[in-house]
């Protein structure tokens, strides 16, 4: 078959990666020849890609950004060095050599000055980049602090104390929750999690399935705010023990739980 796929969902199923055999081959052979279906597949990729938002939030370590910036900086310097190496090869013949003999001392001097200026420029650029990164980090912290302040000052915010469940690791966790704002803040402490396990905080709605409110490391909890669906009628908050990194839905035992009253 090399006609248009008969069902519109075929593009989403292909983007999801579930098709195989003839069904997959039919799309792969048709799309490169049909602009209309290529657009429909691009739209399906975009829709399916939105599922990424359902992954529990995990911030990357700041070292990843540092490593990335070092890597691209090194690639720029490498490209410039290669370019500089190729330049002398272009000068050739009698006139090239004569002019070179005249200009070499001046060029050496200029290169020396240029190198110093470049080093200075790079140093200033690096400092500027660091300042920008710091400023951005501070802005992020300020935003979080403002969110936390708004949460704590709102009359609609309720405090939920989570009680330890029998036989479970010890902990004392409190959640400040505001349904109208769709926001919660968590603090307290919990015993270190066993190897390859994480604690995970859940909002348990009155109707529907639990919603992840973030993964908790063992020890004292750095208070953090988390966005949740607005207007959600919550029945309780709970902490469960899950595989490291957390799960989309609770699978492990309940360690702490507290009703929203």
């Amino acid at each position, binding site marked *: 078959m090399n006609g248009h796929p008969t069902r519109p969902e075929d593009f989403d199923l292909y983007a999801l990666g579930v098709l195989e055999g003839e069904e997959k081959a039919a799309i792969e052979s048709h799309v490169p020849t049909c602009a209309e279906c290529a657009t429909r597949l691009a739209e399906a990729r975009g829709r399916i890609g939105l599922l990424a938002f359902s992954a529990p939030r995990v911030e990357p370590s700041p070292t990843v950004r540092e490593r990335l910036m070092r890597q*691209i900086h090194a690639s720029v310097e490498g490209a410039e060095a290669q370019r500089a190496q190729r330049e002398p090869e272009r000068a050739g013949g009698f006139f090239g050599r004569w002019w070179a003999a005249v200009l070499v001392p001046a060029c050496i001097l200029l290169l020396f000055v240029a190198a110093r200026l470049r080093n200075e420029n790079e140093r200033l650029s690096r400092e500027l980049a660091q300042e920008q990164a710091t400023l951005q980090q501070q802005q992020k912290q300020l935003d979080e602090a403002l969110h936390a302040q708004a949460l704590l000052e709102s009359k609609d915010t309720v405090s939920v104390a989570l009680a330890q469940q029998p036989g479970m690791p010890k902990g004392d966790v409190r959640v400040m929750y505001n349904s109208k704002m769709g926001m919660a803040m968590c603090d307290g402490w919990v015993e270190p999690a066993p190897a390859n396990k994480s604690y995970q905080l859940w909002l348990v709605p009155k109707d529907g399935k639990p919603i992840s409110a973030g993964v908790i490391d063992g020890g004292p909890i750095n208070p953090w705010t988390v966005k949740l669906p607005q207007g959600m009628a919550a029945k309780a908050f709970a902490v469960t023990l899950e595989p*490291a*990194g957390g799960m989309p839905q609770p699978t492990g035992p309940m360690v702490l739980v507290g009703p929203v009253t």
Partner: protein
Amino acid sequence: MSGQTGTDLRASDAALIQKIVQRDESALAALYDRYASLLSSLLNRILRDTQASEEILQDVFFQLWMNAAQFDPARGSLPGWLTVIARNRAISRLRRHTPSAGEELRETTVIVPVNLENAITQQQLLGRVMGALGNLSTEQRAAIELAYFEGLTHSEIASRTGDPLGTVKTRIRTAVESLKRNLLS
């Protein structure tokens, strides 16, 4: 040129891509700050391995730096593309399969129905996606997650869950129809 030029943090993705083509390192940093959290969450969910997730995260943005000139923002969404590439690489790593990464920038066009360039839209979208998933049955949602986060095909999901292949196909098709309806509503 390798200068950091004080990139406007509100600049559009297209403007930042243009600056990256001109070798502006701060433009890449701005895009990283915009989308690294989304990709990190996705990669950690698929791989459950912080080190491997961070390697891929760095690699995806380095590929963007090296190949930005090939990316045409008019043809698709940058975060959509980044998400597709990150997911493909993570699933390839999970399944110990080497992808043909060289074609990614040119061939993977992704059109996202909303503009993801600001954090507020991303937060709103999070609620909409969670709502759409919440409308699925437990079995539908599990099947969608096995496909999206573990890269399993129809028959692999049937084998994993023990359900008949036809049941799995119907379950996923109706789930996809429901997601499509709810995400676009």
